[in-house]
């Protein structure tokens, strides 16, 4: 009885603010030890530390978590998930945040280049079934250029092309799967509503 009374006061109210999309990540177990941040290889480049992002999601400040640059700087190396003493899937939490941000069209200015890359990647797979690197680079650079008109980015790596050709690593005509119809249908079914 005693337990129930205590529970109905504090923590339960906080837990209920965690959106359904995070179920399976065990984010409610986070007790802010900071081990995720301590091991994160890109924490020093992030505007917010990974443990802060977890706290925001836990405490009903999802909007802040969706808008930070950090979720796009994450390189998905899984170190945070691996080392969490409370078995929270921290990298999984970041994935959910990126999915929600993408669905809602939320992207802070610094993240746009990375989002543009991921979108160009998926678009390429939808069309070909397999990745065509040359097409991806062209598409990414166009998308990024139209966003920030950054000429150095547009020209960067142009010296790489001949070196790749020399090594037979440059495939202008990429592989395509035979059954591209099924790939398109898989995308349609998965991206319904987006």
């Amino acid at each position: 009885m005693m337990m129930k009374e205590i529970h109905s006061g504090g923590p339960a109210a906080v837990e209920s603010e965690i959106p359904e999309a995070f179920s399976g990540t065990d984010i409610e177990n986070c007790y802010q030890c900071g081990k995720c941040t301590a091991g994160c290889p890109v924490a020093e480049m992030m505007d917010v530390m990974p443990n802060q992002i977890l706290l925001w999601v836990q405490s009903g400040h999802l909007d802040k978590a969706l808008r930070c640059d950090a979720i796009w700087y994450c390189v998905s190396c899984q170190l945070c998930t691996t080392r969490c003493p409370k078995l929270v899937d921290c990298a999984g939490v970041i994935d959910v945040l990126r999915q929600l941000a993408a669905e809602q069209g939320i992207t802070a200015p610094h993240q746009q280049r990375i989002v543009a890359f991921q979108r160009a990647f998926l678009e390429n797979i939808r069309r070909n079934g397999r990745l065509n690197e040359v097409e991806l680079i062209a598409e990414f650079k166009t998308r990024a250029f139209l966003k920030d008109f950054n000429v150095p980015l547009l020209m960067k790596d142009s010296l790489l092309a001949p070196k790749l050709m020399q090594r037979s690593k440059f495939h202008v005509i990429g592989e395509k799967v035979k059954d591209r119809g099924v790939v398109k249908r898989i995308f349609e079914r998965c991206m319904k509503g987006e």
Partner: protein
Amino acid sequence: MMQFGYYPGCALHGSSNDYEKSVRACLDALDVYLMELEDWICCGATAAHSLNHKLSVALPARNLAIAERDGLSEVLAPCPMCSMELIKANGRLQKDAALRKEISEIVELNVEGKTETINLIQLFQKVGVDALRAAVKKPLENISAACYYGCLLTRPPKVLQFDDCERPHSMETILEALGASSVTWNYATECCGAGMTMANEATVLDLSNKILANAIAHGANCIVVACPMCHINLDMKQADIEREFGVKHDLMVYYLSDLVGLALGLDEKQLGIDKHFVVTQPKKIATAER
């Protein structure tokens, strides 16, 4: 003769075709036969799990379904991004009957989650360390390698259940059988930035520079990887790293299959080592024939 299903993934059919060449030459020499999954599709990689959860299950699941249909119970995926995505999707499907039904409809093939996906290290383990040792023609006595695992070969351990995620040792064991030695160092499981090479190059250069510098500081004369993205970041981008940080690393980066192949008596060309960007010391590697 051993047989395995084979999922090359986009990288090995793209700019990491030297990795595929190396894997195939090496496995040919070991009498391992690979059956490529018919009309396989991309696993979706980071883009799918960053942008659309359902796609990140469905894309790998289509490939698992192809493997199941064709009776391939064990599938080699030499790219750890692919193998992780295939293993993750397989586990989810295994646990959840409703998801199996939904995904089977989405991918237009029945999928149960019955496929065991293995990485390249696991394949060599299946061949057997003793069998490898017995097949060595040119012991790699001059190799002192930093074995680099990066992220996705061992992480997340709950999903992959392979080696020790903080102190892995599986590559070192294989190198020892080849007559090579390996160094103890600090960056074996640190991330190189993986697929962010294009989207966020600054991060990749910074992380990869630390990895190269640490390997050299601990006396390594090469790095060994079992991942196409690690190879791109440490080998192809090495010149950019040197320029960015004003350093000179000049460190060879081998795929694990390169070293196994060299020890088996194959040459650099057969293994595609001549296609690497940093080619500094192949002549010194192989010593007297056994």
